């Protein structure tokens, strides 16, 4: 993973286990980096946070944003190739509560003058199924045909620091809506 700090919402329960098994099969390198998750800060909408940011400062910055948003239940749409690339993702509707959570955190981060990279794309939340591999056509077809009907419950966000190509370290966890 590229050095930087990302804020994610880890998936939980049976859905997380199922997605993790799929990631291990189709992209073991990605599966080893982070548990299945939705990236809220650090990819689209707002780039990765500087790796030098103090976790405590980041926590204090994010608390008001996270506490203002209630836990939410989301639904995955059908798998797709992200921006016509070889990356296969499970998208969710980028609007509504999840976008409010993203914008609220991004606003606080900007106000706190915490350094972030510029994003290339507008906020497009998703769970990545395959990132590093260029899948052969039959595998790609199989992945794109999968369906995920289970609801995605987001009740907390986690911060991960990536310091090198392989290592990631969880540096914070905050519950939504102060729950």
């Amino acid at each position, binding site marked *: 993973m590229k050095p930087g700090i990302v804020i994610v919402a880890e998936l939980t329960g049976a859905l997380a286990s199922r997605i993790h098994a799929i990631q291990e099969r189709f992209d073991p390198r990605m599966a080893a980096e982070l548990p299945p998750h939705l990236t809220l800060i650090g990819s689209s909408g707002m780039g990765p946070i500087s790796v030098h940011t103090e976790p405590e400062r980041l926590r204090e910055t994010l608390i008001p944003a996270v506490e*203002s948003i209630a836990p939410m239940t989301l639904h995955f749409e059908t798998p*797709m190739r*992200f*921006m*016509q*690339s070889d990356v296969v993702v499970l998208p969710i*509707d*980028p*609007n*509504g509560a999840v*976008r*409010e959570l993203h*914008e*609220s955190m991004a*606003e606080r981060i900007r106000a706190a003058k915490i350094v972030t990279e*510029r*994003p*290339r*794309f*507008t906020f*497009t939340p998703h769970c990545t199924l395959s990132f590093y591999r260029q899948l052969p056509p039959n595998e790609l077809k199989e992945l794109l045909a999968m369906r995920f009907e289970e609801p995605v419950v987001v009740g907390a966000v986690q911060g991960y620091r990536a310091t090198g190509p392989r290592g990631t370290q969880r540096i914070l966890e905050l519950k939504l809506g102060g729950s």
Partner: protein
Amino acid sequence: MRRQLRAVLLSVGLSVPTVAHAQTGTLPHVPLFTWEDAVLAGGFVVGTVALRPVDEDFATHLQTKYAQQNRYFQEVSTVVRTIAEPGAFIIGGSLYAVGRLSKQRNMADLGLHGTESVIVASVFAGVLKDAFGRARPFVHPPTDSTGYNSSDWQFGRGLTKGDSYRSFPSGHSVAAFAAAAAVVNETSRWWPSMTWVIGPMMYGGAGLVGVSRMYNNKHWASDVMMGAAIGVFAGNKVVRYHHRTNPGNKFDQWLLGASLQPAPGGGFTHSLFLAPAPRVAQGRR
């Protein structure tokens, strides 16, 4: 009325004229506001009201998966948005600094008045954003039980509930159109024959900024229209104020009449000429 206007201008960073008439030469005095401004303002208000019923249609068309998963659209929208903000401040500040250092009065003038236009317009728009408290399009997605809701306004909510409720007007559109109007007005004084090229280019670019904000689901179409109105007004008024209503005002004397030059031992020397700066040839505006 004139006193009140001066007070308003002072409050947003402009200065009261002192030696204006000494420098106007043969140019007649032009009031800051004319009946044409009322017509223009009325046009923009009508445009904003007319767009309200189709705000949700625009949002629906721009938020299709096909449009949102287009890498080209995504990257162009990021670029034009960045050029508007913070680009307008960086470009304006750089033009001013380079113009002062290289003693190119027109360039410094363009940078200064362009930046001033963006600041004046942004301050005004910021107050409106807080006051109107309109929910951004992403707050009520089509998948909600209500679907899109472009009628979610609440007085003062922009202050209390944060940026998700500061949709009206579009701040990026304000900055882009203010810069465009200032550039078109300034350059039409030096290159009147090129206005037909510069005008469409600048306003077209500003329009792209507005579309990019709708594409990112941050603004409704009517937010962009009102942002354009405020920006165009600010750009026109700032340039008119400095070149026709009160040329040679203290603000320009201080920031365009002083000299900043590289010092022999490194750094810069700053000298302020108390005499009014020489005027460049002035056109209609």
